[in-house]
């Protein structure tokens, strides 16, 4: 890590404190934008544990948002007389558990695919989950699911969810950071770079891939649970969205694929661009995201942090000649 860990923690705490002040000073529109930014950042980091660290870019992570949200909603709807905070915790637990089971189960076949095949297979998973959700009555996807209000009584729901997203985002970031610094994280990076050589060097590639997949799925699902509660009512199309699938990739690509903070930067930037800059021009969103993707691929495949890094490298004195 280029930053001294203690310094990094201090910076993160400072940023978190600053962000926490948001709802106290911002108008309601910007509080909602802030919610979206924090939610997207959390999703982006969760995605990057599998996509950026291990190199398995999933084109279908929205599946886990949907599974987590609907699992939580279906269970919560059947509980009565339970206090709202507890309901949320149960929802998070159930959503996470369902995503864990689903991801663990499909990891066996799907992690045998590499690169583009894996990406498309995950897109397929997302579409299939969406289809089942919409067509099987039990999931109430087409009808829609109501979520109980869980915000404390004397707190504005918008503020509550803003802080909840901030907390959740920090937890996800912390987990990803710990992974990155650990032996597990080093193994994931080596898998991304050259899976066969990594295996030759003794990295337990199958086990590590599966762990990254499940962790990523669970965190994504739990963020989805929070999202569903913040909406109050969801249908299939609220959560199983192709633009989410795409955005998750763009966040990491924009900020810097493979880095820890890149996805956060990318998420903040993209949400800002689409919600604030292009806010009124709703029709423009797809076009703008697509255009951004095209520009990134052609001009800046390393994203924002990649540009920063190449700028740093250019300023570094020439390496010592080979012995």
């Amino acid at each position: 890590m280029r930053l001294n860990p203690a310094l990094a923690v201090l910076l993160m705490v400072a940023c978190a404190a600053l962000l926490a002040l948001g709802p106290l000073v911002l108008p309601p529109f910007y509080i909602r934008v802030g919610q979206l930014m924090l939610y997207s950042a959390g999703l982006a980091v969760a995605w990057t544990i599998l996509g950026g660290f291990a190199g398995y870019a999933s084109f279908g992570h929205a599946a886990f948002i949907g599974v987590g949200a609907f699992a939580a909603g279906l269970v919560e709807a059947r509980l009565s007389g339970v206090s709202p905070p507890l309901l949320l915790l149960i929802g998070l637990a159930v959503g996470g558990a369902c995503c864990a089971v689903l991801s663990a189960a499909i990891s066996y076949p799907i992690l045998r695919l590499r690169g583009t095949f894996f990406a498309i297979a995950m897109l397929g998973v997302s579409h299939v989950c969406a289809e089942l959700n919409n067509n099987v009555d039990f999931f109430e996807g087409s009808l829609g699911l109501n979520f109980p209000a869980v915000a404390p009584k004397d707190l504005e729901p918008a503020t509550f969810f803003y802080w909840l997203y901030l907390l959740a985002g920090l937890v996800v970031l912390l987990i990803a950071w710990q992974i990155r610094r650990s032996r597990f994280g080093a193994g994931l990076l080596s898998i991304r770079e050259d899976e066969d050589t990594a295996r030759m060097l003794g990295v337990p590639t199958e086990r590590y891939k599966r762990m990254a997949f499940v962790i990523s799925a669970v965190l994504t699902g739990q963020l989805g649970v929070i999202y569903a509660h913040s909406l109050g009512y969801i249908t299939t199309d609220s959560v199983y969205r192709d633009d989410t699938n795409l955005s998750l990739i763009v966040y990491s690509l924009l900020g810097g694929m493979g880095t820890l903070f890149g996805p956060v930067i990318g998420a903040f930037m993209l949400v800002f661009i689409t919600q604030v800059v292009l806010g009124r021009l709703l029709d423009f969103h797809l076009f703008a995201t697509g255009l951004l993707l095209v520009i990134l691929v052609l001009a800046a495949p390393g994203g924002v942090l990649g540009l920063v890094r190449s700028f740093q490298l250019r300023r570094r004195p020439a390496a010592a000649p080979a012995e």
Partner: protein
Amino acid sequence: MNLIAQTLADGLVLGGIYALAAVGFSLIFGVLHVINLSHGILVLLGAYLALIFSKALGIDPLLTLPLVMAVLFAVGYVYQRFLIQHAVDRSQLGSMLLTFGVALMLQNVMIWVFSPDMRNITPSWAFTSFHIGAVNFDAVRVSALLASLVLLCCLALLLKFSPLGRVIRATAQQTMAARLCGVNVRHVYALTFAVSAAFAGAAGIVIGIILPFSPADEATWTLNAFVVVVLGGVGSPAGALLGGLLLGIVSTLTAQYIGPSFPNVTMFLLLVLLLLVRPTGLLGNAFSASR
């Protein structure tokens, strides 16, 4: 017995169309090693162009085929030569993302220009049907199928016997050697993409006359193409035909016997199964050396 025969017949008809819709995608994958996620959009572009041309010129949609194919040929050439080629030089994921981005942009443009509503280009003779034995065929679907088969044959003949076809196959099999023989590989790649786009457009017309379409369908047609390629094999019209027919039959059988809302599920399960068991498809890669 009648029901299953009818279902199979419907599946074959649908399958032929799937095959035409996928063959361009297959060719690009085999020759350029690019997964073109904007394939579905090119198909839809064909459908919308047919809509415009047939209204403007007052002719049957199927007759706009040559014009639409020509337009898409040009579009495809420029798209590949000046945009995708740069991403291809970087990485496979890069070209996938680029084409994904373009697909979204074009989808948005189509929504602006044509509105998100469903359209179709039903010809005037749409409602006639006939039967062979106990199986019912409807004229539009049959003509769509015939058009598909004829076009697939033309492509197969083009690839096998024409100079262009030979150059494409050579470049696909041994790119470096082709370069050393003086082949302008970028030009060949662009021509391949152009051919692929033309056929995608043709498929769009064929699809448009039997099904309602809207900009939101583009992902479905791209995914369909991908499944057909995985099923039947990369790079050949025969592989596309086999994969398409298989997909068509599985779709109709699922719709009939499991439920009309589940064709995607079965298709996807079939896809994953095949990716695990035989990822090169039933006919394998048409451009790789024999084992």
